[in-house]
């Protein structure tokens, strides 16, 4: 039974949006209740350098989807990337920031 919490870490031009860290904190709280761990999904182009910050934010495992096609946010490629991470992580809950591009 899945018990991990997966956070979609939102970055724009190599900068992580603050709401992502709030969600990582929430994910750690929820993981306490589900008996799992907080994990993160990081999508973009050349985002490897951000994993350190995401780990510091509380992610125990990070799924990175890195491709030149993902340099700019577009709904369908990002959806495909996040779905791939969800398939790999099989989490109990997925948390996504309620930011404007997500609407």
């Amino acid at each position, binding site marked *: 039974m899945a018990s991990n919490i997966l956070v979609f870490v939102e970055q724009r031009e190599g900068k992580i*949006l603050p709401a992502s860290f709030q969600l990582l904190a929430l994910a750690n709280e929820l993981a306490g209740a589900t008996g799992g761990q907080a994990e993160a999904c990081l999508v973009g182009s050349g985002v490897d350098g951000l994993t350190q910050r995401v780990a510091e934010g509380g992610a125990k495992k990070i799924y990175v989807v890195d491709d030149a096609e993902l340099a700019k946010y577009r709904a369908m490629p990002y959806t495909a990337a996040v779905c791939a991470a969800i398939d790999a992580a099989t989490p109990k809950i997925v948390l996504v920031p309620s*930011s*404007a591009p997500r*609407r």
Partner: protein
Amino acid sequence: MRILTVVKQVPDSNATIKLAAGGNDIDRAGVKLVVDPFDEFGIELAVQLKEKRSDVSEVVAMTLGPDKASEALRVALAMGADKGVHLNDPAFESKNELFAAYVMSEAIKKDADGFDLVLCGKYNIDLDAGAVGPAMAEFLGWPHVGAVIGLEIADDGKRFTARRRIEGAEEVVECDLPVVLTIDKGLVEPRYPSLPNLMKAKKKPVAVLTSSDIPGESAAEAGTDFLSVQPPPPRPECTFIEGEPEEMAKELVRVLREEAKVV
């Protein structure tokens, strides 16, 4: 080009909201209901497009709700929509936005003449979820552009450019029709329907669809249920400190230390 504009009847933002017995809904008795102000942007945009473009053949307003929701359709018709579609069935009554989007998308698919543009508010002021627009697009298999503040449709009516506001920036996107757009404040200023137009609106046709037209059981399962709603916490007590700047600063430090005990 045929345009569909989605309207929802919501409590007026000045209304005093009380909780209903059971605690998972608000008490609607005696609450003034209005057309959602964001949906009004959609109606206004649709009507302006019809006024400006010769290729817009019809503007249809659609609502999902009980008998009373027909008032919202009448407002849309008075603002200039040509006809209304009222999805009215107890089986449609749900606060589940995914379900509402499913029912409306089915109604759109069943429309014999088809639509090229579906408009609705960025979100509704009652539930603030903003899910109906994107979910309708998904059910229709159409693209969706959210929170639009600028729109240029090409003369051939096939392609458009939209501007949308995101945190700290503005996005410009290009896309083909058909599309679902959710409209943000700033694109258009909704008109007040004139009295003659309010009278004319009473004669415009409204089609009522029920669950016998749209069987809606399949999509409801994946949605959410409301367990409870709560009023926002009361505003904490506020104390004004008055006097000369020096005295105010001294008093503030004293209050923080001795009364609030935070420093």
